[in-house]
């Protein structure tokens, strides 16, 4: 019997491989039923999922999943990727498609199982692996036979493992003790949190041998999960830290280096985010083919937009207020209100939609329950790049040298022939531009609205003050420190208390060390 099974499976795989139409009458029946009664979707999906060796089944199921399946004129039709409409029965092209099937969650669940059942028969081991994983999430006796059959013939070791894992929850209920023990072993090796609920009753059960094995499996699952949690928290902390750093880096320049208490910093972030929105709109209209790459074009646009606004503010208002911190604070606060209202008038009070490009949606699943979203990873990389760029400007260019000399000793720098006013404008524009870059990153994570900046201004000041005014390294340490501590506190005490605890901690820290983590050493003439 197993030889026969193996043979049929091999034949099936071969059929799928060459794409031969091994038409399964069940598929024809299901399609006919669906065409006759579009409401009988659930039964048809189940029938298609159970079909064997007919490539049409998977094609129809996938079309249904992606909203490309319709019924018109007594035929089931599907729209292919290139926009042609094909008859599902025989693949003939037809002219018109009806309106696509609507799905509900209940249908989507059944559809997921049906697609996975078909994909288990695929030739690509990666596809089989994913399908086995999907079936493992929803163990059901309905697919047990298929799983066992494939486990016997599967050549790929990883897929075999995944199939065994999908079968383990079903084996736990088996009457055969050896089989149960083996299932516990499989779960101990690869089981996830979900297996806990199944293992716990066995661990407390009567059979000492089974109970011991189950307890061992539980503790192994627990250990794995603990490690993953710690790694997850660290990643979340780094990610939040990099967001804070991007939000605060501009302020570290305008407030940290220049000493301008810049209440309009948040609005520079906001302008950067709106620049992203505008660039997105332009791409959507004129370059829809390159839409996925609009963010790259948004970076220089956001930098320039914020830098220009920053330069204008410096030239018209701030330049007359140097050395008068209180007036600067009030003036920049006023500017921030003006900017918010201006944006509200131009773009409306509503939040605007900034879509994530496809390459920033989703994430890598490094382990079950631990997904590293692409937009978070990209934010971390982006923060590092921006930081490197700012550092290079300050340490390696003439402008950087001038900025440093002006901030250290304005009078002496002027005496050496440096146009300090010009340097002030350029520095403020640079700080604002960097904030604009931060705005691009923020637009990918949260809301873009006129009040976007207000949400980040306090955090930004916190980062700069905690890190130590006047040092870029301080901003880095402050941002990452705040991010990681926040994320380590949050699972323990919750989001609301975590935020309060963090603020309390900063108050205490500033009491003890008013100069922040990194203090400027040496003499500053103006202080």
């Amino acid at each position, binding site marked *: 019997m197993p030889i026969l099974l193996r043979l049929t499976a091999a034949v099936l795989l071969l059929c799928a491989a060459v794409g031969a139409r091994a038409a399964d009458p069940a598929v024809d029946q299901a399609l006919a039923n669906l065409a006759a009664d579009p409401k009988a979707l659930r039964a048809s999906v189940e029938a298609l999922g159970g079909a064997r060796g007919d490539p049409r089944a998977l094609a129809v199921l996938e079309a249904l999943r992606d*909203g490309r399946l319709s019924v018109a004129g007594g035929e089931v039709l599907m729209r292919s990727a290139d926009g042609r409409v094909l008859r599902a029965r025989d693949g003939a092209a037809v002219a018109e498609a009806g309106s696509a099937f*609507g*799905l*509900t*969650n*209940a249908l*989507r*669940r059944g559809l*997921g199982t049906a697609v996975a059942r078909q994909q288990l028969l695929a030739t690509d081991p990666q596809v089989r692996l994913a399908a086995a994983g999907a079936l493992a*999430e929803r163990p059901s006796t309905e697919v047990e036979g298929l799983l066992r059959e494939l486990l016997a013939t599967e050549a790929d070791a990883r897929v075999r493992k995944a199939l065994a894992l999908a079968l383990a929850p079903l084996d736990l209920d088996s009457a055969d003790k050896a089989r149960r023990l083996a299932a516990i072993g499989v779960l101990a090796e690869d089981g*996830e*949190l*979900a*297996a*806990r*609920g*199944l293992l716990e009753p066995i661990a407390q059960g009567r059979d000492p041998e089974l109970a011991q094995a189950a307890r061992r499996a539980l503790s192994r699952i627990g250990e794995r*999960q603990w490690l993953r*949690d710690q790694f*997850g*928290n660290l990643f*979340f902390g780094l*990610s*939040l830290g990099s*967001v804070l750093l991007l939000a605060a880096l501009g302020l570290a320049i305008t407030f940290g280096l220049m000493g301008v208490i810049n209440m309009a910093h948040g609005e520079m972030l906001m302008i950067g985010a709106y620049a992203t929105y505008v660039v997105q709109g332009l791409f959507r209209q004129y370059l829809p083919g390159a839409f996925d790459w609009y963010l790259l074009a948004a970076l220089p646009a956001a930098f320039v937009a914020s830098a220009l606004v920053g330069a204008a503010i410096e030239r018209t208002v701030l330049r007359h207020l140097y050395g008068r911190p209180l007036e600067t604070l009030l003036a920049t606060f006023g500017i921030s209100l003006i900017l918010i209202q201006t944006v509200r008038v131009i773009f*409306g*009070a*509503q*939040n*605007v*939609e900034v*879509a*994530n490009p496809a390459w920033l*949606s*989703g*994430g890598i*699943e490094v382990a*079950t*329950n*631990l*997904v590293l*979203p*692409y*937009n*978070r990873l990209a934010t971390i990389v982006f923060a590092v790049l921006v930081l490197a760029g700012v550092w290079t400007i300050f340490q390696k260019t003439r402008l950087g040298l001038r900025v440093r000399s002006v901030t250290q000793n304005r009078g002496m720098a002027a005496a050496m022939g440096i146009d300090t006013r010009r340097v002030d404008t350029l520095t403020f524009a640079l700080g604002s531009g960097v904030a604009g870059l931060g705005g691009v990153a923020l637009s990918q*994570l*949260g*809301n873009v*609205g006129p*009040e976007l900046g207000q*949400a980040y201004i306090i955090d930004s000041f916190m980062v700069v003050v905690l890190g130590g005014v006047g040092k870029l390294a301080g901003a880095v340490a402050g941002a990452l420190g705040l991010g990681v501590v926040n*994320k380590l506190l*949050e*699972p323990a005490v*919750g*989001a*609301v208390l975590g*935020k309060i605890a963090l603020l309390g901690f900063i108050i205490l820290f500033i009491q003890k060390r008013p100069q922040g983590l990194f203090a400027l050493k040496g003499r500053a003439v103006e202080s």
Partner: protein
Amino acid sequence: MRSKSKTFLLSSLAAGLVFGMAGAHAADTIKVGILHSLSGTMAISETSLKDVALMAIEEINAKGGLLGKKLEPVVVDPASNWPLFAEKARELLQKEKVAVVFGCWTSVSRKSVLPVFEELNGLLFYPVQYEGEESSYNVFYTGAAPNQQAIPAVEYLMSEEGGGAKRWVLLGTDYVYPRTTNKILRAFLHAKGVADDDIMETYTPFGHSDYQTIVADIKKFASAGKRTAVVSTINGDSNVPFYKELGNAGLKATDVPVVAFSVGEEELRGIDTKPLVGHLAAWNYFMSIDAPENKAFIEKWKAYVAKNKLPGGDKRVTNDPMEATYTGINMWAQAVQQAGTTEVDAVRQALGYQTFKTPSGFVESLDAKNHHLHKPVYIAEIQADGQFNIVWKTEGPIRAQAWSPYIPDSAKKVADWTYPWVCGNCTEPKFK
């Protein structure tokens, strides 16, 4: 006034005296107050309620007004500032002498104006779903009470069709509405045999934007082997980062459905909805309802938006609180016609027995006893285009329970403004 006869002059003088020197202008129009935030954080949601109220008033005026007079809207902006709501309410009632006020969104703003309306015997129509536990003599609630939204949504998710959820995450913004709703839901889940171990309750501050940890926690909580559902009472902007994180973390609606009570068509306008397909919302009205009344309502709204060139243009949508506002104004107009006066006590008597065929496709009626609207309940899944696909609905309107039977203290209370109770929160009738 020059051309008017002497008798009219006399009678209008007398009327002026009776109504506290309302002036000649007030005599030929009926003033209607609109109390919605047009700036600040709530402007996002409340602006369209102001717009739809003006549309309804225009519509009534086009039909000749009420009692032979035109309606005159008085729009004020309480700027999302809760104490300012009370001040503006007082201004509307005392200075402008409005006959009725349509307004408020957040529960905290309603609580702020409540004493003003009760002191000055004003009339307020409140159009938003809320946590219940209230019934005022001076307020008519045209939004849903918990048994008209939250409880049916949870029951649906418990059902076979909804996924048979056994474990629950109650996630909300940290203020009175989510806290009270979750208190009721927890009591309800207990009554259905759900243990405390299977309920996770989490709150975030207003404007929270980093949902990584919470989404990871939900994932962990959901992987305990039982089917899990999330009930979200997150309000306002925070929904965007929350749903983005959900999508990116791969938490699909087929595995862990999220049902939201404060997310409608208007809120989804700012979100890319593709990763959210299948997540749910429970309301008493959806723009996608297939009913002739709804079609007419949407057409009217689109025409009004186009005519007045409202911001957003053809992307503007209708939603549940807008429908409730529209229903409220029409019911009030009917009551005024019946009472033959705009005087609050008479209109209130008439209001208790009004029915109106609303855009939800049902004839809804105001309850004379608890001042709430009988409403149908719809549960719908988010679609890729930002609209909702209705998957479940009640057969007809259901009566609101102002006081939740699931909380022991409130279960004893009765809201009944008819004889012999005449009370919004009593345990025994006033007149025996």
